[in-house]
């Protein structure tokens, strides 16, 4: 079975700093998708960034980028120039490339950006 682990329950950084959130996963699949979702306080989860496992290039979306290490089964999220609006729960998630239609989530990391 697929598992996703986020080992940092909480993190806190100052505004404008760079922060990296860790995620590891376990799967026997060779191709899959990985996601980072953000859940601001009392609001919907929204997609931050997506990585396709068969692509070696790390995904980037503005200030958000990932470090995808397929062999190590690691998928970390880097937030550059952090902003107060980045304060949220961040969830790492695994999705199958075909077959089972479901996301497998990690436990989440609560990120606080301090002014």
């Amino acid at each position, binding site marked *: 079975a697929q598992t996703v682990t986020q080992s940092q329950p909480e993190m806190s950084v100052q505004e404008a700093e760079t922060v990296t959130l860790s995620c590891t996963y376990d799967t026997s699949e060779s191709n899959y998708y990985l996601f980072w979702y953000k859940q601001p306080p009392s609001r*919907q989860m929204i997609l931050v960034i997506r990585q396709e496992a068969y692509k070696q290039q790390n995904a980037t979306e503005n200030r958000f980028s990932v470090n995808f290490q397929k062999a190590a089964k690691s998928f970390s999220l880097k937030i550059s120039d952090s902003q107060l609006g980045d304060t949220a729960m961040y969830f790492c998630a695994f999705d199958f490339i075909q077959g089972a*239609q*479901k996301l497998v989530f990690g436990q989440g990391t609560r990120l606080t950006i301090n002014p």
Partner: protein
Amino acid sequence: EPEVTQTPSHQVTQMGQEVILRCVPISNHLYFYWYRQILGQKVEFLVSFYNNEISEKSEIFDDQFSVERPDGSNFTLKIRSTKLEDSAMYFCASSEGPNGGEQFFGPGTRLTVL
């Protein structure tokens, strides 16, 4: 911008009662999902739904649970006889396509079973 909506935002019920949680997915989406998050724990998949039938379900989704798309817009989760351990945040999601497509989440319904 289109979004997934859920009602109610908070539901309190007595153990053994039936509850129906409602969701309105994004209108052109074809795949629908329910997830739950027990306080302090991870978000867990319950069920996915496509073409008016369940396409995947987890071991959590037992006979007490059912889903339905009663009309062209709503997607519901019914719990027939609630238990204390059903207390959780329930999230509905929808996507245009299957695997790999972005799932758009609703704000959740907090279910409290007393």
